[in-house]
Structure formats: C-alpha cells, structure tokens
C-alpha cells in the first residue's frame, strides 16, 4: 500500500512535468531544419525514392538502420544464447494433442499468402508505406501462425540461419560497395545502382535491394526468436 502511495505521489510529479512540456510545445506550422531539407531533396528526386521516410531510413540515416538491424540481430542471438538447450529431452509420455485438420489446412493455405504479402511490403518500401522491417514482421507472423496451428511444426534451422547470416552480411557489403565504388564518405550510399524511373518498382538505386535484405533478415530473425521462445524447454 505504501508502495502505491509513494508511486502515486511520484507519478503526480511526472504528470506535472509532462504538463509543463505539453503546455510549452509550440505547434509546428511549417517544416524546418533537416525535415525541410529532406523534403526538398526528395522533391528533386535526389535518391529516387518516392517514400521520403524510406529515403531517410535506408540512405540518409542508413547507419541508424544498420544499427537497428544489428539490435534486432543481437536480441535474436541473445535470446538464442539464453534459451539454448543443454540436451534435448523429449518426454514421450507428454505428447501434445495434435491440431485439427481444419486448422492445419487453413494455416498452410494462409501462410504462403502472408509471406508473399510480406515480400510485397518490403519490395515496395521505397514507393508506399512499409519496408523491410514491416515486411519482415509480416513474414514472421506467417511463421507464428504455423507454430500456433501445428504444435509439431519445425523451421529449417539451416536455411533460416544461412538466410539470416547472408542477408546481414550482404547488407554490410552493399554499404562497403559505396566506399569502393564512390568514395570514402559514401558508406551505405544507395546510388551505387542507377536510380531508375522515379516511382517505378526498380528505382531508388540500392534501396529495394537493401530493404529486401532487411526484410529477409528481420523475418528470419523474428521467426527464430519465436522458435526459441516457443519453448519445449522443460
């Protein structure tokens, strides 16, 4: 009880702080700073990406995104390390009940569509809302569906592992290509490939490639997190 009272008092303090903040925020009426800069540069089709947010994420602030991929990768790796199995012990007496036919058929029917939708999202990341992370998450949701529907479903660790590793490595390589092909200050530059026609699917240089790699990586990573957490631990 005392804990609650103290917490309440403390949070009242925070309410006051947030009140000050909300009270002092000045409504934005025009773009300024880098936001404006990005808008103008995109208007000039500098990177060839229709989606300005994508241009920012993949190229202008590409290092952030590389880091972001790394964060997810670390989390997936960390979870795999933490949930590593010391020995596989499957108790035959405790077998789970099998899923029903409808559930199995339905999920196997849906999963490929979901995956294709995910691929669609990351392939169109430079044109429409979406991108590698969103697409990857959608792909992982297909895997999750399979896990939920079929208790005995197992992912192919080899394929997933290689896909995860290689897509990440390829992302770094594309970054380095910028250094090799253009110059020392061009790490992660998308203009190593031609910018193509503005608004078409094969445009915006390396952005679709990068987003594809990110999509694959995020999808496989989230799937392996799910796989680890699914837990036939004990």
């Amino acid at each position, binding site marked *: 009880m005392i804990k609650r009272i103290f*917490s309440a008092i403390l949070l009242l303090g925070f309410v006051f702080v947030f009140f000050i903040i909300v009270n002092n925020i000045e409504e934005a009426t025009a*773009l300024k700073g880098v936001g404006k800069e990005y808008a103008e540069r995109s208007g000039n089709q500098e990177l060839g990406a229709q*989606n*300005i947010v994508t241009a920012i994420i993949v190229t202008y602030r590409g290092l952030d995104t590389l880091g*972001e991929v790394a964060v997810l990768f670390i989390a997936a790796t960390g979870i795999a390390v933490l*949930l590593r199995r010391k020995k596989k012990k499957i108790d035959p007496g405790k077998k789970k009940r099998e899923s029903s036919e409808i559930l199995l058929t339905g999920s196997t029917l849906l999963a490929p569509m979901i995956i294709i939708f995910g691929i669609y999202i990351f392939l169109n990341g430079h044109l429409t809302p979406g991108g590698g*992370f969103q697409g990857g998450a959608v792909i992982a949701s297909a895997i999750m569906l399979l896990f939920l529907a079929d208790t005995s479903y197992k992912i192919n660790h080899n394929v997933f592992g290689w896909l995860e590793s290689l897509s990440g490595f390829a992302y770094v390589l594309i970054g380095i290509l910028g250094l090799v092909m253009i110059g020392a200050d061009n790490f992660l530059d998308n203009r190593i490939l031609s910018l193509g026609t503005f608004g078409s699917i094969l445009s915006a240089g390396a952005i679709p490639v990068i987003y594809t790699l990110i999509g694959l990586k995020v999808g496989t990573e989230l799937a392996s997190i799910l796989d680890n*957490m699914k837990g036939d631990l004990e």
Partner: protein
Amino acid sequence: MNITTIVHIIGFALIIIGFWGMLTQKNMIKIILGLAIVETGVQLVMVSFGFIEGRTAPILDSAVELSKVSSLIVDPVPQALVLTAIVIGVAVNALMLTFVIRLYQQKRSLSINDYKELKW
C-alpha cells in the same frame, strides 16, 4: 485543443500508466508490459512532434506536387526515428521476457520481490 495536443496528452498518459505498472506490479511480466506501454507512449509523443495539421504523408505520389513538397507534407524525420525506436523496443522487450523465462525456471516465481539475492 488541436489534434497534436490530444495525441501528446494520450502519449504522456500512456507513459504515466506504464510507469504505474512498473512501480506497483510485482509480476515481472507485468513490469515488462509496463515498460512496453511506456515505450508506446514515447513513440506516440515522437510521431506527434512531426505532425503538421492539414498536411499529407511524406510520400511523393500523385497527391504531392514535386516542386512544393516542403509545404505539403508532414515532417518525415520523427517517423523515421520512431521506426527505429519501435524495433529497438521490441528487441529489448523480447530479451527481457527471455530473462524472465530463465528466472522463472530457477525459482518458480514471477515476483520481482523474490530476486533480491544481490543487495547492499
């Protein structure tokens, strides 16, 4: 009161709610959920900072005239930042849950009060 302010208030309210959960719940999973709510609140506050009333999304489709982009769209930067923040939040929460799984295996308890072997 305009939309931005309302979203701000909702965001900050979520932060307060999340903190309340973190400070009062004993169950570690609930504490993590508290943190997740706080993160959501922060993300909401972040995007609303880029919002400009009456403008469109920062995508240069037919609705946006290329020569006047900067006067037609909302600020794209907070949106880009929020994406990163969300992904990082997900990663942290997943890892925290993993810790809880392992802790639970050690002591069969989810109460944070039971994990005080290190102190002073």
